[in-house]
């Protein structure tokens, strides 16, 4: 993988500062996106375009956080979005929100790409915690509120919980790698990840 350097968000090539498209916050009414996915499953291209508008920015964003390399990230994000189209009929609302379904597809693919990379050493360049940097660019109020809510809730975690969660989720590290990076026991990291996510879940008030 080439280049571990982080570029400031507003300077990312190819992504013009946006207002709303693609930056819909995580707090979409769950019914809407799920209902759209049902239409997508029936082959409705307009429904897919609507799903794109609501999810593409988040998909690309999390992939960029994990994969870093812009070209590879675009590739992976395109694969994810195509996956959403192809497997829309497999979305089961009983198993969680449509947003969680899409982001799970995205995060998994991003992590798979990273783990298949040979040069693990270069990944240590990344500063995963800087992902939610303050963004000077104008963005949809809802998106900004979501960011702030996440930042605030992450702030309510202990430092070790926050580090474990950040390294794992944004950094794409396995729990053993996190243990190594933080110099703590594997069992401790597992607990921190779980407790940290539980606290996050409760702080965000997202449904189980």
């Amino acid at each position: 993988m080439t280049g571990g350097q982080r570029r400031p968000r507003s300077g990312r090539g190819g992504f013009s500062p946006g207002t709303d498209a693609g930056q819909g916050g995580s707090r979409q009414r769950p019914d809407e996106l799920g209902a759209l996915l049902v239409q997508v499953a029936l082959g409705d291209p307009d429904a897919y375009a609507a799903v794109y508008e609501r999810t593409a920015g988040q998909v690309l964003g999390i992939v960029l956080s994990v994969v870093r390399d812009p070209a590879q990230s675009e590739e992976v994000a395109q694969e994810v979005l195509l996956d959403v189209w192809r497997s829309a009929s497999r979305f089961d609302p009983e198993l969680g929100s449509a947003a969680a379904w899409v982001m799970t597809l995205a995060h998994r693919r991003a992590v798979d790409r990273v783990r298949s990379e040979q040069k693990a050493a270069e990944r240590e360049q990344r500063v995963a915690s800087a992902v939610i940097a303050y963004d000077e660019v104008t963005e949809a109020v809802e998106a900004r509120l979501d960011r702030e809510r996440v930042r605030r809730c992450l702030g309510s975690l202990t430092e070790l919980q926050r580090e474990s969660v950040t390294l794992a989720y944004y950094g794409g590290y396995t729990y053993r790698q996190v243990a190594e990076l933080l110099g703590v026991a594997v069992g401790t990291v597992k607990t921190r990840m779980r407790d940290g996510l539980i606290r996050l879940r409760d702080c965000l008030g997202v449904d189980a």
Partner: protein
Amino acid sequence: MRRRSDLHALAGAYAMDAVPEPDRAAFERHLASCEPCRQEVRGLREATAALAAATAVQPSAAFRQTALRAAGQTRQFPPATAAPPRRALRRQGRGRRGWRPRLGVALAGAVACVLAVAAVVAGISAYGMHSRLDQDQGHDHAVAMVLGAPDARMMSAPVATGGSATVVMSHRERALVFTAADLRGLPPSESYELWLMGPAGNRPAGMINVSGGGKMAGPMVVSGLSAGDSVGLTVEPAGGSPRPTTPPVVVIPLTG
């Protein structure tokens, strides 16, 4: 041997895709039999979705165009029927439910053929995203509704003159999807015609279009089923006939 408490403890790491093989497979096996764990993972995934959303960026117009175009050129996976078709093979392995797209239950060849045809039809329809024929999309929708119905059942039977016929029907939809494979070729003056044969008589249900090499016929949607109906296929003059003029080459009772 992994202790249960160890496995529970992995829920957080798992929800963040931070559990590599072989631990991940072990945890997923555990998940299959632990409903509280599944609940917990579901809830934690809602939290990670929020983490993901916080990193949203604005993709370029070119990125959008690529994504929409790719979808237009890609076939979708068909839905898996919730109720196992009567003669289908049982699903192999543990009953996995989850985020990963399932590639479908292990199906008898005929049902796989029906679904494959439906998927191809859906794919072709999706290819022209601005489809000129609303008919095509209505047809695909009707096929999908039957195949996706929770009470969908499959029945198949050999055709007396060669090939096989398969029906997937749904009582709830009061409709069925008919396909046939390897039908004996007919001269241009003749065609296969489909019938609903019931206690009150025989109703025409459409002419079968046999594609290219005669490999697959249909899928055809027949709706308005009544109690006691069977589906039958006869050979008729090319333009069809209001009444069967030859004995059926296959009859499939729509029982239940």
